[in-house]
């Protein structure tokens, strides 16, 4: 009896000293550009580690779609505690995997739409928009664009989240007329690239008058390069939103740290670096507001967004409509 007790105590001591020697590790899976030295990753890591007494480790996996596919491949044995960087066109699939746990109470959000998702927490958002040079006459909406001689570069909805966002935008704005809009746009589309980088690169090379990107893209050129020549076209139909979210893995071995991270995510330590690293709007406006230059960005009159369930439901048909219209 006595012996057992002693060994028990000794065991406890061992565990305690082990825990002291080893700082707990919180593993956050995210997309690649989040962790690069120009992304929010380094600043976020430094700020969280100041208070958490932990080691925050980012693991990057391509883009948002690659990120989800990696988590799904790993399944329940994933080392991730948090997955950060999905958007609402991907979350339904993520939810269906059963890998994610619901979040707790959220700080009040500064989103242009009401947020009711019980699982995923938004960390930033942006409106999709066509970005062009300021000296090009801007069309007022998709129909005006289709009627014009303007040339655009877009991304493929089958390989790129912005590409998919554009298909959702047209579907949300035009419903049954979406196919007709795409047919009318066909002669404006120079080409369709596999990802955002290729499209933006082509646009900067002068291959097109405009590229599908975000209303905040001109902020990069303005703030980082002092170049005011890029603008986003404001469309009368309203603009589709991309809301980027994070979620907690249900099987995490660090549930408290994971919750602490999600709470931290909505504080200024995280949110203040978003506008000039991710070039998106923060989900909670940080103390001190948005950086200078953001006030020059367009503010769409109406925000369009399918719920994640609706997005999943309309996606396949909308993409097929896009493919059929542009394949003719």
């Amino acid at each position, binding site marked *: 009896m006595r012996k057992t007790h002693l060994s028990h105590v000794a065991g406890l001591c061992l565990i305690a000293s082990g825990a002291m020697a080893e700082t707990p590790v919180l593993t956050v899976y995210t997309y690649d550009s989040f962790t690069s030295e120009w992304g929010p990753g380094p600043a976020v890591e430094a700020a969280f580690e100041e208070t958490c007494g932990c080691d925050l480790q980012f693991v990057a996996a391509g883009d948002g*779609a690659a990120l989800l596919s990696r988590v799904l491949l790993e399944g329940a044995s994933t080392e991730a505690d948090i997955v950060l960087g999905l958007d609402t066109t991907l979350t339904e699939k993520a939810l269906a995997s059963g890998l994610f746990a619901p979040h707790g109470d959220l700080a009040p959000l500064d989103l242009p739409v009401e947020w009711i998702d019980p699982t995923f927490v938004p960390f930033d958002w942006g409106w999709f928009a066509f970005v062009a040079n300021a000296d090009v006459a801007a069309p007022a909406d998709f129909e005006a664009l289709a009627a014009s001689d303007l040339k655009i570069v877009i991304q493929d909805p089958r390989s790129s989240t912005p590409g998919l966002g554009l298909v959702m935008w047209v579907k949300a704005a035009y419903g049954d007329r979406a196919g007709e809009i795409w047919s009318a746009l066909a002669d404006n589309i120079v080409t369709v690239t596999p990802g955002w980088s290729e499209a933006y690169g082509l646009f900067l090379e002068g291959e097109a008058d405009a590229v599908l990107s975000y209303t905040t893209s001109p902020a990069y050129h303005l703030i980082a390069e002092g170049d005011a020549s890029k603008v986003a076209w404001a469309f009368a139909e309203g603009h589709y939103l991309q809301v980027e979210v994070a979620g907690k893995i249900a099987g995490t071995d660090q549930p408290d740290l994971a919750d602490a991270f999600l709470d931290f995510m909505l504080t200024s330590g995280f949110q203040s670096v978003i506008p000039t690293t991710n070039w998106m709007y923060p989900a909670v406006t940080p103390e001190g507001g948005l950086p200078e230059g953001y006030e020059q960005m367009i503010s769409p009159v109406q925000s369009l967004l399918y719920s994640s369930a609706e997005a999943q439901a309309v996606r396949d048909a909308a993409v097929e409509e896009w493919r059929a219209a542009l394949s003719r």
Partner: protein
Amino acid sequence: MARGAQPLGRIRAPGLAVAFAIAGFLGASVWAVAAKAAGRPGFLTAADLAALRFTLIQAALSAALSVGLAIPVARALARRRFAGRGALITLLGAPFILPVIVAVLGLIAVFGRSGLLNELLALAHLPKISIYGLAGVVLGHVFLNLPLGIRLILQGWQAIPSERVRLAVELEGSRWRLLEWPMLRSVLPGAFLAVFLICLTSFTVALTLGGGPKATTLELAIYQAVRFDFDLAKAAQLALLQLALGAVFAAVAYRSGAALGMGAGLGRQGFAIAPHGRLSTALDTFWIALAATFLLLPMVMVVANGLGGLNGLPSGIGVAVLRSVLVALAAAALSVALALALALRGGPVAMLVGSLPLATSALVVGTGVFLMLHGLINPTRAALPVTAALNALVGLPFVFRGISSAVEETEANYGRLAASLGLFGWARLRLLILPRLRRPLGFAAGLAAAMSVGDLGVILLFSGGDQETLPLMMYRLMGAYRMEAAAGVALVLVVVSLSLFWLFDRGGRADADA
């Protein structure tokens, strides 16, 4: 490729083991993906069939044009000697080893809507041309693969012993009929196959220059299945379809490759005895100038764009260069070892296995490897070794293609002699084969190393973020709007990868022209 009577004493056992290992590895990767699938794959949809059709058409056109254009260019390069010829041959190889996105941007700076060509047309008051569509896809593939075609065919010409050329001249026979046509018949099917298979799995070029969903390839359908639909059954199904197509075409190429027996010489390359006629000189000059303009102008644009970004290079560039070079050296060594074993064995099995990696979807194999590693080790920690290994596999077909005809030549010409001298095994390899393989081995190792430096696909699957290689750094800069700095990194990448290629290639050619 040589069929018919095989001399005794070829080193066959390691090649068989390698063939089984590679086939097993590819099979296991696809199987790992299929095993993870929730259900069975459905039938191919109309969109899949359209993708299949477009994939085959563009691949056939691209391969025919790349190889067709490469013949006169390689012939001219083989026959003429001029200042800077060696450097030109190295530079002409550059497009093949670029990351595809860099090549595409360079191409667009020349052929795009606001590229050089259209600016010239505008000066002449001619209408603009647009390359996007099937023409653009083929143009892109020819730009990327013409260098490979030129090098493979040039090697064929260089392998014709100078004694043979002199003999043909003395006999006043047709060099074309006696030497060149038989050489081409043995080299062309393999070159065509290589380009065809590369284009079969094309993704970025087909999409970016294709102009829209009409130009959808099978690889895009696979990407969509893995990334957006998480339909692994379908991804495995499409990957198997690609593999089957690759196997069929490899078999056809093997059947149509003719045996070559040039006879032995003293190992000198002597094709430079060119005809002096004015017409033939003019034609050769034309072909070299055409290829140089087409291949180098976009490279000049890549360099010009990159110069502006050089002072904005990120701090980690040195480490990234080091990582890329180490991975490339490991990949090249492994690739050469595997390809040499296959080439020594020869025959249909080697040809098939030496071609299959070209026809495999990098995404599916990468995903399969990921699944196999996951649970054993953290795939992210093994990012660089895995990248080197998979790059070795990607490079294998080119290395194999680069050395196999030289091995066949050596065996055909000296095999009987070696057998009668009792030269077998290691001694045969060291004394007979390797000395005769220096030039192709140098070229092949350089190619494998350079291709690995430009690889983005594999590292992107495994990196996890802190194992930054040059292409990954470039990709990240582009993703963060920093196109100018990305162009700077692309320039560094071009320089590193061409230097590696040049060093190996040079090493293989040193004192070979004696």
